[in-house]
């Protein structure tokens, strides 16, 4: 036997479909979507509440994130430690998080412990203790976390990008607030937020796993059916403004061996007709290991461990975001390379690139949703962005139909390479002058701390 000289043929992936939901509505208004995923013995569940961070008072931003921290610190007569023990005995994880588009409580637990774990989840949501000691402790931890995070260049680059890109909207500012706003939050603010915004009529339970003989709808019903509560109606959401003028933001990080970069432009939301074509275009330009950006910066020039772009979305804004960290003395060249690649991509995406990107985006579906948690996370994201839970199959069908022409048209239409926001976290004394000479936009120097 000898070696085969050329790649074997690949049999096209089977026509994969997203698991079908079993849907139910409890009498208190809570919606339940259950997904049976064979072989997934760790059940994933997420209770998503429709609430936007815009409901936070400007001087107390971060209250939703603090509610998320405090929610699991004791409930229904159990102290924080008793509550943690009860969860741990189930091998369960329970946590909560706030995002710009929603507030969610996540549970994962092996299937034999599902009943008990769901009741604990219901206790946290419907009867949180918000104990004074626990509140103060979580608040202190959050303040320390803010200080700690400010020492990580990747974190600072992300925050500075949001600040520059999203102008004056809530998205410009950290989800978890900053030192001044968190310091201003009182226990009552946390309790009030939970009372007003965590209510069954705006809640959807998304649950997935191998349920065996367990009826997930009945289990969720038993845990949550007695929850009677009406909070405030969700206020309308304001439009999100994004930057349309080119910007170069320089954050001083003295003597760093690398510069951390974010280069972003306005893109589209997932409900936009151009989403799929833009998704495929992004894959070719920066969304994969073999993309144009990574090929130049890593595989040709060796100035980075990796460079990639992604389409990031919230309900009302889409961002095309390139992120990388590059050798300090190659910073300006790398920034220019990226902008040149983005500019040159207009109208030049090839048939081969697009065919490969379409296959990559669609044939990876079975793999991407192998875990129950991935199914739950995707449905949660879709609902929070105002899309139906069966959007995955619709999206896949449209992705398969993307042509080279459609990808080129969408890219040219969406990405304005002359209107990017460039954030550089690196040694300002070395970078100030060459970034200015480049002439893309006036260089604005900002302090690493957001104010």
């Amino acid at each position, binding site marked *: 036997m000898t070696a085969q000289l050329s790649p074997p043929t690949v049999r096209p992936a089977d026509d994969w479909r997203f698991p079908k939901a079993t849907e139910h509505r409890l009498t208190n208004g809570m919606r339940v979507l259950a997904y049976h995923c064979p072989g997934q013995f760790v059940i994933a569940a997420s209770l998503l509440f429709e609430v936007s961070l815009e409901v936070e008072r400007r001087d107390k931003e971060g209250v939703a994130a603090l509610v998320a921290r405090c929610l699991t610190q004791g409930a229904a007569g159990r102290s924080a430690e008793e509550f943690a023990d009860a969860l741990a005995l189930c091998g369960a994880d329970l946590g909560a998080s706030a995002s710009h588009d929603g507030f969610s409580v996540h549970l994962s637990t092996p299937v034999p412990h599902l009943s008990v774990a769901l009741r604990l989840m219901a206790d946290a949501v419907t009867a949180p203790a918000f104990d004074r000691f626990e509140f103060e402790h979580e608040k202190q931890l959050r303040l*320390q976390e803010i200080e700690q995070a400010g020492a990580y260049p990747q974190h600072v680059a992300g925050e500075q990008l949001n600040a520059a890109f999203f102008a004056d909207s809530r998205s410009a500012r950290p989800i978890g607030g900053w030192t001044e706003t968190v310091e201003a939050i009182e226990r009552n603010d946390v309790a009030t937020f939970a009372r007003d915004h965590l209510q069954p009529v705006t809640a959807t339970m998304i649950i997935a796993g191998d349920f065996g003989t367990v009826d997930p709808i009945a289990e969720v019903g038993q845990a949550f059916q007695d929850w009677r509560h009406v909070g405030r109606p969700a206020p309308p959401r304001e439009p999100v403004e994004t930057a349309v003028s080119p910007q170069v933001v320089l954050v001083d990080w003295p003597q760093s061996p690398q510069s951390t970069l974010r280069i972003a432009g306005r893109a589209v939301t997932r409900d936009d007709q151009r989403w799929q074509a833009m998704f495929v275009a992004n894959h070719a330009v920066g969304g994969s290991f073999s993309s144009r950006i990574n090929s130049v910066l890593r595989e040709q020039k060796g100035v980075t461990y990796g460079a990639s772009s992604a389409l990031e979305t919230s309900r009302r804004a889409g961002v095309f975001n390139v992120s990388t960290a590059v050798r300090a003395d190659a910073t300006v060249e790398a920034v220019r390379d990226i902008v040149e690649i983005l500019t040159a991509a207009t109208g030049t995406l090839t048939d081969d690139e697009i065919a490969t990107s379409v296959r990559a985006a669609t044939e990876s579906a079975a793999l991407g949703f192998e875990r129950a948690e991935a199914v739950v996370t995707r449905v949660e994201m879709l609902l929070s962005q105002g899309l139906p839970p069966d959007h995955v199959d619709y999206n896949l069908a449209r992705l398969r139909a993307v042509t080279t022409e459609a990808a080129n048209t969408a890219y040219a239409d969406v990405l304005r390479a002359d209107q990017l926001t460039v954030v550089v976290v690196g040694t300002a004394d070395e970078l100030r002058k060459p970034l200015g000479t480049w002439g893309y936009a006036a260089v604005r120097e900002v302090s690493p701390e957001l104010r």
Partner: protein
Amino acid sequence: MTADPTVPVVSRTLDNGLRVVVSPTPGLGVVAVNLWYDVGSRHEEPHRQGFAHLFEHLMFQGSRHVKPGDHFALLQGHGASLNATTSFDRTNYYESLPAGALDLALWLEADRMAYLDDALTQENFDNQVDVVAQERSQRMDNVPYGTVFEKALPLIFDAEHPYGHLPIGNMRHLAEATLDEVSAFHSTYYMPSNAVLTIVGDVTEFEALRKAEQYFGHIAPGTPPDRSLPQPLPPVAEPVRLDVSEDVPMPAIWFALRLPADSPTGRELAAVGLASSIVGEGDTSRLHRRLVRHDQTAMSAGLGINELIAGNALGIGSVHAVPGQGLDEIAQVFDEVVSQFAVVGPTQLELDVARAQAERDWLDAMSTAAGRADALSGCALLFGDPALLNERLPVLQAITADEVQSAAQRWLTSAVHAQVRVVPSATGQTEDARAVERADAAAGPDSSGAAI
């Protein structure tokens, strides 16, 4: 209502010595291919720290029938996820893909196992030396606390010890390396008889074994390297400590410990694992409750184990202090918590929690074809039998409170810690490390693994 996590296992050794492990999951639509080579950072020459990981990068630069860059391009182009990691004990190459692309993955893996040399060039070698240097910067040098683990290792293992340095290695060593050394490394370690190939997912046992033979059967067996392991070391004889001043936001302490090596039954290390889980894992742990909740002197506190086989395994703990809190007091409390645990042993509740957590971690790890493939490769390569995978959880569940207590007494108490204390520097810059006990803390790589 039972979750049956038993993983079906079939294994066979090809004539050339390649161990093939198969675990079918009919109807999954996905297949995972996983290769473990019996070479990691512990096999490196003392003046070539980081070479195994650099070599791993070069495995993606093409081989006789594969153009540079095509490994990623072809697989990602068919919807695959892939990467490789280099650890202390082994190098792992893996891809998860739609079942129809299995042949492609096997062909690519076989070509680089057999014929890497043909594609090596000075240009792609130099390029990957640069990329690895940037990997180190991004993961370690430009990150607060990023090099602390590296500084801790030489405190418990001599420089010549297999675990005396991290897989990411020494960038000066790599800059001095030559292309010839890459070829030599390939012929020393990369051969069927020094590897395990695992195929998990939507493929029958028959088809998987047939394809393994089809793509790998022609490769010459080679002469496997010496597989002898160093003698186990006892816990360090006396506490060792290194103080450093760096550009970090808050003071912190890292603890490093010698542990008993992992083994086919793994019972002693599993007992240490349960002990360290009770003492230092999650918000029910003793360290968290004492330092973070009760004393409120720390933001976080934890202790974990790194399962290794060459004489010893490795324990790593860390505490991030609240600003203004003294590290002396924190270190003292850390010792106190561990010593107290060694005296009284676990409560029933603690033992139940640790077992529930272990079961859940197991189910999580087994929830993807890639996770099962990786675990099977590990048992086959490190312990000689992939079927041992299904014994790991029962062994752990059978460990008694007495065993946990004994393990803590022998391996976790204060007398056997090495510490690295990190305090924020006044200048914001890293100052010279000042060794309190031993003098030479230098050179090494990333956490425990480095991906391409």
